[in-house]
């Protein structure tokens, strides 16, 4: 089905199911119970899962397949956001023209930046992309203020033309009348499920994006990209010019980033320059590596993992800690709470940094490799010596930038 092998089709269907059922799956604890803090089924967070999933999938097409480590992907994210908000300002709040423009402009940006940066490899490539992204960020902050509204961030004002705006048009982002921030809440025996239109919009796009990346991974083009990662020199010796392939991968991943940026503005009609800062580029690198670069599922896992724990960890406060550790002897409770302070609340980035270091040191293949190792271990105990790899994605090759 869909031009995929049977295994991939099942895989895709599983991903579809998981994405569409997210509002239910991420709400395992009833409202008001002690575990309710760990619920993640609210629209804002779910939208971020989908959007950063798209961003990471796109980044993975470049980094995971070709091994080129870009430190400037946030520039495309910002460009996408600005495009969408400009379409709001000029036409109306319908998201479709904005998203199309976001993809087109980010593709043009990616083509220009990629054409120059891809002349170098390894760390030089990383520095070049970083330099371009920082340039865009600095310009968006200062000189391009008429275009980007500088520090305030671009937003829609009442005196904007909005030429397509009719009498009854919604005054927030919508898809042909379906308002993004509308949601349906269903209360089933204490469990509150929120089905948000914006989330489902992102989710459908994320599934399409995933399907596309699946096709790329399985295509001859994807094979060529892997060949570039494995040994570019040898590829050149066979008489192939690898530049068009890397450039295509760069532009595709730039378009994914632009789309993700556009969706951010589609959920919340704002665009700020800080989306282009290099820390934002660093974040997508973290997500991809944490999940497992070069695997299909990895980037999505990584994005979900980071966004989930970012939200949950920063919500944990002293009262909750006291509740959890209350059953312990006093001294132990205080000591544990003191230690936890390093890792929760505002210090969540410390946890992220440590986790990331541990993954790079011990699990170069990311969470996916961890899962595979556990699966292999379990299987090895049950039945010795089953040779083939039943996982649906290729084994993560070591991610090499050179």
């Amino acid at each position, binding site marked *: 089905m869909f031009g995929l092998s049977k295994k991939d089709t099942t895989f895709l269907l599983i991903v579809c199911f998981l994405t569409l059922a997210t509002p239910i799956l991420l709400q395992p604890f009833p409202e008001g119970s002690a575990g309710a803090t760990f619920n993640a089924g609210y629209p804002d967070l779910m939208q971020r899962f989908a959007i950063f999933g798209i961003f990471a999938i796109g980044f993975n097409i470049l980094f995971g397949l070709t091994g080129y*480590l870009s430190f400037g992907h946030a520039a495309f994210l910002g460009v996408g956001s600005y495009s969408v908000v400009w379409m709001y300002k000029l036409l109306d709040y319908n998201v479709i023209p904005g998203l199309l423009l976001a993809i087109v402009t980010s593709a043009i940006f990616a083509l220009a930046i990629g054409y120059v940066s891809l002349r170098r490899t*390894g*760390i030089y490539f990383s520095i070049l992309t970083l*330099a371009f992204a920082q*340039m865009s960020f600095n310009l968006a902050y200062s000189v391009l203020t008429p275009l980007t509204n500088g520090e305030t961030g671009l937003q829609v004002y009442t005196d904007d033309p909005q030429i397509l705006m009719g009498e009854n048009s919604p005054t927030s982002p919508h898809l042909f009348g379906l308002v993004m921030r509308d949601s349906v809440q269903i209360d089933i025996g204490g469990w509150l499920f929120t089905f948000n239109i914006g989330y489902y919009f992102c989710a459908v796009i994320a599934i399409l994006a995933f399907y596309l990346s699946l096709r790329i991974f399985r295509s001859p083009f994807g094979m060529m990209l892997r060949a570039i990662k494995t040994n570019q020199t040898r590829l050149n010796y066979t008489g192939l010019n690898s530049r068009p392939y890397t450039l295509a991968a760069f532009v595709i991943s730039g378009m994914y980033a632009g789309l993700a940026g556009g969706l951010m503005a589609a959920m919340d009609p704002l665009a700020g320059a800080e989306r282009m800062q290099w*820390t934002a580029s660093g974040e997508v690198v973290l997500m991809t590596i944490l999940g497992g670069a070069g695997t299909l599922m990895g980037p999505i896992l990584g994005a979900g993992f980071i966004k989930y724990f970012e939200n949950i960890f920063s919500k944990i406060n002293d009262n909750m800690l006291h509740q959890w550790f209350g059953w312990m002897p006093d001294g132990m409770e205080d000591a544990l709470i003191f230690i936890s302070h390093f890792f929760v609340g505002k210090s969540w980035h*410390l946890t992220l*940094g440590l986790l990331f*270091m541990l993954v*790079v040191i011990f699990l170069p293949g990311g969470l996916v490799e961890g899962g595979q190792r556990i699966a292999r271990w379990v299987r090895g105990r049950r039945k010795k010596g089953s040779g083939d790899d039943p996982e649906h994605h290729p084994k993560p090759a070591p991610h090499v930038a050179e």
Partner: protein
Amino acid sequence: MDAIILQVLNGLDKGSAYALIALGLTLIFGTLGVVNFAHGAIFMLGAFCAVTLQRILSLSYTVVDETRTDFLGNPLKVDVPYVEGWFGEATGQAIIEWSVPLAILFAIPVMLLIGFIMERGLIKHFYKRPHADQILVTFGLAIVLQELIKYFFGANPIPTPAPDAFTGSFDFGAMIGFAENAIIYPYWRMIYFVFALVIIGAVFAFLQFTTFGMVVRAGMADRETVGMLGINIDRKFTIMFGIAAAVAGLAGVMYTPINSPNYHMGMDFLVLSFVVVVVGGMGSLPGAVLAGFMLGILEAFASMNWIKDILPGIDQIIIYLVAIVILLTRPRGLMGRKGVMEE
């Protein structure tokens, strides 16, 4: 003419910081072959050495001053720093006031130690891993260090003033024969520049004129052969890592009066320092220093008003622009050696 000199001077202090950080980065890269994304964090740790020392020196105990009373008529309680109690009031206050220069002495052993621990504990295991892994793990380390500092010192910049003798500015123009008040330059920036020159000179002299430096240089050129001569090159390289950390740390200590340190100052400098290293040429020490000063000065020139009128925004992007042009026309950087980090 005086405008040009003023801009050169303005570029020197930032250029010095770039040069010192880039020098350390290049030392680490040239010796160990490791791309260290945590070097900006080391610079920041150095700055916080100065803050820590200032805090330690200001530790106080409370005494009851019988001669003065508060508004209720009770004897007034005053905080007296321990150093004032030990050395008398005048000396004590002078010591606290001079905490930034004193922090140099404090920072050297601390930064050397941090360097050793980092190298032995983490970097050692990454010699043979690809550069991408090195970048990633040190990037993670930088986040961890940054967050630890944020945890202990808070997110706001902490003012650490220079000694009173060096605050304020002096008329540099009048000293070299220009009109008065044409070139006014703050004392501390001049000191920072001279300090940077001394450190850079010391590092070069150390590498050039000592046996240890000779071995290190030989090891940079051909590590294997030096190892075969029965020299434990790994240990020497570890020491060089410590020295590189100390150089960045000292750059941070002395930078505190120019810019109050906060936890993300390292990241801000790191990106630029990497650009500096690449422009200077990976693995070339003189290249790193030259590029550091050059880019600092270029940045100062680009922020002149009449240049900004012609090319708006140029001051924001000049460094990146130069880096892109140099990388595309001279892939090896200004003074890069052949065969270093090429494919």
